[in-house]
């Protein structure tokens, strides 16, 4: 509700829009965006520029759809219950369907000249001839296939070359309605799947079928609008109607909101569900080059390629001023044969046209060339594109792919790294590593063999020269400083954990100082492990992370654990002192502390194909540390297994409570400060004016 209020307020106020950074005389009134190499929105050269405005002041009333056939625009003029036919090149206008239509919401014109109109108010789909005569009227199907509870409120219609009619209606939860040439209902098509929460999954496991039926009805999200491609495939857009204004949540919805359906109704646009999409799409238009344009009612237009990657995003909302290229309530979008984009503004009742720039055409060309395996030409096009925007992810990826397919792995790797494309980077790295190994395998083997031979030869000779071979110095010698010995005692925990903990408890090994150094060392290793892994295995970019957050992530749990464990154990008859817990915990992290550096090195050598080794080693070291901590508790406090388990659980509970308490205090404190501020402000205002 708060959000809505803010929108209304900002629409009412006359708002100044000023950006201080760059003065630019752009042709366009809104910036074009693309996705940057960091996966964030970034401005780019204008891809589409607003051209003429059509039918402004003609008298359309709440129009809701437009369809373009052979460069003629057909408009569903809902408020006037008619179809308006407009030729933007000659400005000729004619109308159709007066007296027949009641509330036309969607329109489609077939190759054979028939006009299909989805009439929302009349609850039917009209099939009109070229001159407006009714040829067929499809009303609510009588079929048992048609959902009992649904009404027939069609909002849009498309027809395949084979005369299969697809209708989308209000609340199309069941999917797109499919009719044959005679207007007989054939069934539903391409329904969205309902999302299942974790709770629902658990309920599904436990409850009986009857209980399940009674408990909840999961309705999948309704399909909002559809369009058809040249090859009779269907695009659909879905809105998160239930979530409405809180788009942030909608964004997290697992399903994509833009889909391209194959004959079975499955989404073939982007199967990994990680599209850059919006929750408020109202219409979609199939483009000329297997691309598509999705429109939100706020006037934002996203263009996607055939794999569902975002190419451009442009357009915008007219909030405080009416400038061309911006919309008050965008309702429909379509493309003509020249690639011009027409967007219908329902509130302002006009059509705004956009035309593509060189940049847009070049991008389409590059994508198409790459797709049709035209590598050499595509390479040149991508280079041109990178000149125009050096931070566009799609450009670096595209260029990288052409290089990769031409087996120029080294260059390709560079661009995949910039584009943050780990999968392809890993492939390139594998190829390079493979070549390297192939090249040097002989040398390496020879060196190894030579080394072995030397060793074999050295053994008898060496014994003669150095008769008493010394053991490794540091560990055994008594001369080494105590601190160093204490620190190196960490290796003992790998082999003899229980004895070692005992020694720590007794105070014979390990001091507060050595433990502190170990904490610090573990922290540094932890930080490197988080931030400075090899590119393929690195999931956080160091430049976006503040050192404080990493420190907090490491030291706060450590601190809470040590304090919590000591306090819990002291009331639970634990024997350990605070020192023992502190020192013991530091040493218990030994497996991680020792293994992580090696894993770190491995991340620079291995590729995604060998990711298993890295993950396995990492989890193993972690699990081992956890086991050691547990053993440490048993030993230090002299607990049985059961007691130790209880202790651990209570300690974890304590940690959770401590964090919650701090959070609550923090929030309340903020509220109190705010309240006082308001009070003082209010009082001074009343007193002074």
């Amino acid at each position, binding site marked *: 509700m708060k959000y809505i209020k803010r929108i209304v307020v900002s629409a009412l106020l006359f*708002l100044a829009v000023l950006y201080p950074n760059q003065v*630019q005389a752009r042709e366009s009134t809104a910036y074009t965006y693309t996705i940057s190499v960091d996966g964030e929105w970034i401005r780019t050269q204008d891809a589409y520029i607003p051209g003429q405005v059509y039918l402004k002041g003609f008298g359309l009333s709440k129009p809701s759809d437009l369809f373009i056939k052979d460069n003629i625009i057909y408009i569903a003029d809902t408020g006037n219950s008619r179809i308006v036919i407009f030729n933007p090149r000659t400005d000729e206008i004619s109308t159709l369907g007066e007296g027949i239509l009641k509330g036309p919401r969607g329109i489609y014109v077939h190759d054979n000249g028939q006009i299909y109109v989805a009439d929302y108010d009349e609850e039917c789909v009209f099939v009109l001839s070229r001159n407006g005569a009714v040829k067929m009227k499809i009303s609510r199907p009588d079929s048992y296939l048609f959902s009992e509870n649904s009404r027939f409120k069609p909002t849009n219609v498309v027809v395949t070359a084979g005369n299969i009619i697809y209708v989308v209606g209000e609340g199309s939860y069941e999917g797109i309605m499919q009719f044959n040439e005679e207007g007989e209902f054939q069934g539903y098509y391409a329904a969205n799947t309902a999302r299942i929460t974790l709770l629902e999954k658990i309920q599904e496991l436990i409850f009986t079928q009857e209980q399940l039926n009674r408990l909840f009805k999961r309705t999948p999200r309704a399909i909002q609008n559809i369009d058809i491609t040249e090859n009779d495939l269907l695009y659909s857009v879905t809105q998160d109607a239930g979530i409405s204004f809180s788009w942030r949540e909608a964004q997290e919805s697992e399903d994509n909101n833009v889909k391209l359906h194959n004959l079975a109704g499955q989404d073939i646009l982007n199967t990994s569900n990680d599209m850059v999409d919006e929750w408020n799409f109202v219409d979609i238009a199939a483009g000329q080059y297997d691309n598509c344009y999705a429109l939100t009612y706020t006037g934002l237009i996203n263009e996607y390629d055939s794999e569902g990657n975002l190419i451009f995003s442009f357009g915008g909302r007219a909030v405080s001023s009416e400038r061309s*290229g911006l919309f008050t309530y965008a309702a429909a979008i379509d493309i003509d044969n020249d690639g011009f984009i027409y967007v219908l503004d329902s509130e302002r009742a006009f059509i705004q046209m956009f035309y593509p720039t060189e940049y847009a055409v070049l991008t389409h060309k590059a994508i198409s060339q790459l797709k049709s395996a035209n590598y050499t030409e595509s390479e040149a096009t991508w280079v041109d594109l990178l000149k125009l925007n050096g931070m566009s992810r799609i450009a670096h990826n595209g260029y990288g792919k052409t290089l990769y397919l031409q087996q120029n792995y080294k260059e390709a790797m560079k661009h995949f790294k910039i584009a943050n494309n780990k999968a392809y980077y890993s492939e390139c790295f594998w190829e390079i590593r493979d070549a390297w190994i192939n090249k040097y395998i002989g040398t390496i083997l020879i060196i190894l063999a030579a080394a072995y031979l030397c060793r074999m030869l050295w053994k008898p000779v060496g014994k003669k020269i150095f008769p008493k071979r010394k053991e490794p110095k540091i560990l055994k010698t008594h001369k080494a400083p105590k601190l160093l010995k204490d620190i190196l005692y960490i290796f003992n925990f790998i082999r003899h954990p229980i004895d070692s903990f005992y020694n720590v408890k007794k105070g014979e090994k390990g001091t507060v100082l050595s433990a502190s150094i170990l904490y610090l060392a573990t922290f540094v290793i932890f930080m490197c492990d988080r931030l400075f892994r090899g590119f393929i295995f690195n999931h956080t970019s160091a430049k976006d992370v503040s050192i404080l957050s990493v420190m907090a992530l490491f030291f706060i749990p450590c601190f809470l654990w040590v304090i919590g464990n000591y306090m819990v154990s002291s009331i639970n008859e634990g024997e350990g002192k605070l020192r023992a817990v502190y020192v013991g915990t530091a040493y218990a992290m030994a497996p991680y502390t020792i293994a992580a550096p090696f894993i770190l090195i491995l991340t620079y050598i291995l590729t995604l194909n060998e990711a298993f080794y890295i993950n396995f080693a990492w989890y193993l070291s972690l699990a081992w540390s956890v086991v050691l901590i547990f053993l440490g508790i048993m030993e230090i406090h002299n607990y049985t297994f059961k007691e130790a388990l209880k202790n651990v659980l209570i300690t974890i509970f304590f940690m959770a409570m401590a964090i919650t308490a701090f959070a609550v205090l923090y929030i309340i404190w903020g509220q109190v400060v705010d309240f006082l*501020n308001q009070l003082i402000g209010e009082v001074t205002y009343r007193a002074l004016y």
Partner: protein
Amino acid sequence: VRYIKYAFLIALAVALLSIVVDAAGYRNKKYEFTVPDTSLVEINTNRYTQPDNIGDKIENRLDLEGFQKKIENQILEIWFNEKLATLRIVDKRSGYIWGFVGTDKPDNLNKSWYAMANSILTIEYYDKKNAEKRISLSSKDIEKQYSWQDNSLDCQVKIPDLSMEFKFTMALSNDGITFALPIDSLKEGGKEKIKSVYFAPFLGTTQEDEIDGYIFVPDGPGALIRFGKAQSYTSGFSKKIYGLDMGIDALEAPSGLMSSRSDDYLVDEPQVTVPVFGMVHGAYQNAYMAVIENGEDYATILANVSGIQTNYNWVTARYDYRQSYMHTVTKSGTGIYKPQEDYNQQDIKVTYYFLTKEDAGYSGMAVKYRDIMEKTGFAKTERVDKEIPLRLNIIGAEIKKGFLKNYLTAFTDIDEAVEIIGQLEKAGINNLTFVYEGWQKKGVNGSKYGEVRFESKVGKKKDFDDLKGIVEANGGRYYLTINPVTANEDQINKAAYASVNISKNYTKFTRTDKTLMYQESFLIKPSEMVNYIGKSRTKLSSYDLSLKGLGIRLYSDYSGKTLSRSDTKDLILQELKKPANQNIALYNPNQYLWNDTTEYFDMPMVNSQYLYETDTVPFLQIVLKGSIDYYAPYANQGFYTQNSILKMIEYGAYPSFIAAAADNYELEDTPLVDLYSINFNDWYDTILQVYRQVNEALKHVEGACITEHKIVLQGVVRVSYSNGINIYLNYNQEDKKVDDVLIPAKGYCIEGR
């Protein structure tokens, strides 16, 4: 039989082959990736000037019945009706009668609107409850004493209910009428507060498209609003002269996209930099142009076409004495709107000039305005070069996000800059306006505000001197860029430097994009700003300076002793007037700075593109061509198409590029991420191509003034210069022939050489 068998086999093979070929052809469906012909849909937009409808003579729609002739000179007669406080102006040259609406109240105006429409003066005030009210001179509640002199009227105005009084004058001078309201005559006595004043707001008003004509507003380069059928718009044209006063006006970005993309998607609207507006009744027949001589710092130009509020087309200026602002009560920004306590100390003076025949159009207005400027002391002449200048903005160093701390990236060091100059020289481009940005210690957005030190990663002071030598030896100019107006939180100590607005918050611009390195940029206190400029001018006295943001930002400051907008303006002018042997380049400067501008960067090339605006016209350009060298915005930021090149030629603007030696992706994670493409080598060919085309045309008119700008046909423009040269441009996709000149498609033609 065997032959038949063979024939059959061959036929079969051919058929199969053709199927395969066909299938292959289908699979590799070839698209043609060419830019479609967009010339028609482009030139029909309001980014271009539309041809004038040269139609019938505009007949008088008003008469003089009920009016008495009060004063006159050789050109104008003023007739007055004291009851309605309304007038008629007769232009003796053409016999055309200017006025407001008829003497009988039309049905489509209510009483209040009618009073405003017909009165020569309307005031707005805040009543006791701070609600806005309006009263016009014809009202019975106003006591007025007219005293007519030889060629002027003095009118004493008293409003007993509001205990308010003031005096205004209307004087006749040659071809103009001047309205004035001296500030010392204004007296307030009651609880009501004066808000603003209008003079003759409905002068020349028309209904819908009853006659052919347009409103001119100086939106960016200039915009026309042609009269048309009534249509509904949410608001009319309303822009403060010299831009918003950031010290009072709200600086919020709009929200409402409701998407994952951030809400700062709007391209900045150009602002009004000249205090001028006008109206034309019939192109090349009758027109007036209003020039605000005093009080423009607080004036707003309003233009309304039929459909907005009323059915009338009208344009005027509102002179504000007070405005309401958000008085915040809490830290989170909630508060109440209330008017300013004290009124602005401003005299108001505006002159309406009447134009006829060939002068009656936007082009004639611009020429007239140039004359007026010259008469009032604007004396600058363009430097005449053999070849036109090319502005090259080079990025030196900039900070980049990093782990633990930001680090510095050198985008172009001195050696690379020398190489860039060498490459251009090799291509024959010597007349460079070379602008170095980010030369300071820690780069463009990392340098401490107020410091004047060179970044060693770019070069030592000596290197900068050497570079200056190279540029100037070639015949170019060398500027160092300083941004004295805005800074981010790391560059300043906010308490010491940031300006404070009337609501007692820091005055700042905020962008909603959370991925930016700096979302906020703070405006600097005018006193500190002037200090910094002064310091830079002494410490860098051997260099020319380009001062970013100074020309276009004018704001009041409430950090200490209140500085009004006019005070800030005076401070800036005082500093710039100090004698120094140093050139100052400004970015899109407001009119009051033109005398102190040696070069004009970022000349606006397009208006705000409001739906009711029908044309963009080169008003600013006609005024300035021949006086100051002015440059188009950076071509590599989306202004490099053939149409853009033609527009540079049409508007007489020299090309600009922003460049660096570093690769484009180096921009990632810097505050300059919005520049997206600046690598010099990538743009080298485009630079040559753009420069050569523009040079080939504009070198013939170096130092000359534009005498006329005219649309001959849709998409065909003729620009006439004072040295007798005409430049014809054709934005169409096909060749056009006008005045016996054949202009190639998407090209230009120079005549009179």
